[in-house]
């Protein structure tokens, strides 16, 4: 019973007051799917895929890059919801759940320093992966 009460408290604390918790898939649909597609595959030559990001996440600076890239850092979501969304995207589309998962504090710190030269940062990461 105590465990049940604790679980209920956790659920309530994650939800906005007076409102059902927004499913993470809804945050994805509204903030990511427009460009990356509902299946995360992107459009070749137009928008990048979200599949196979495991090596990028594991590269030096890759974890920070994925939170600082403009589409992530500037998403109109709280740090906690953005952390939940980024963890979900990496697990669902890349089978690469971050370890440890991104926390709200980490996301808040990283998104406060957005990338100024995204292309160069990405090229450096890709060069390391190769």
């Amino acid at each position, binding site marked *: 019973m105590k465990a049940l009460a604790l679980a209920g408290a956790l659920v309530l604390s994650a939800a906005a007051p007076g409102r059902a918790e*927004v499913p993470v898939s809804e945050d994805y649909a509204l903030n990511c*799917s427009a460009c990356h597609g509902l299946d995360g595959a992107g459009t070749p030559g137009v928008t990048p895929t979200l599949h196979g990001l495991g090596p990028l996440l594991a590269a030096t600076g890759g974890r920070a890059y994925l939170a600082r890239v403009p589409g992530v850092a500037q998403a*109109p979501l709280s740090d906690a919801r953005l952390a939940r969304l980024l963890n979900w995207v990496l697990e669902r589309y890349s089978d690469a759940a971050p370890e440890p998962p991104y926390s709200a504090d980490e996301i808040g710190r990283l998104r406060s320093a957005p990338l100024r030269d995204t292309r160069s940062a990405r090229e450096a990461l890709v060069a390391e992966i190769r």
Partner: protein
Amino acid sequence: MSRIDRLTERAARALARSTGRRSFLSRAGGLLVGGAGLAALPVLPVVRADGGGARVPAPNEDIEGPEGDPKSCEYWRHCAIDGFACACCGGSATACPPGSEMSPVTWVGTCRNPADGKDYLISYNDCCGKGLCGRCQCNRNEGERPDYHWVRANDINWCAGAKSQAYHCSVAIVIGQATEPQPER
């Protein structure tokens, strides 16, 4: 300046810069007469939002109650549209008109369906590859954001992700239910 005006001006300037009348006539004649040109035309007359082949959303149309008139700007799914409603252009609320291509990139918002009082996620894909439709110009912007929030902006020509950047009209595809109407607080 409205989005349609900007798109028209941009398209006209780009066309004027890149083509002469003679080259246009030459290519148009080749397309009409040449077999190779005909082979490039789409086989199916309508591009449907069923995800078949193209990178477009699969509709989630399990909605109860009267749907309303998709040829009206007041149609509930058009709550955040800015453009020509495809239902007035030979297509439907979920399908591009014949000869146009659905852009794989788009923007997604939410609208409340008065028939059941629920909010739904709406994907406003642009249909591309033909000139401006010119019918049912709707400019409702509920929950829409300025261009610097580009994934929530409807002033963008989303045909940038299609083979042709010529904007024709917009569809309004339901891709799921929403628990948080836009804009979120």
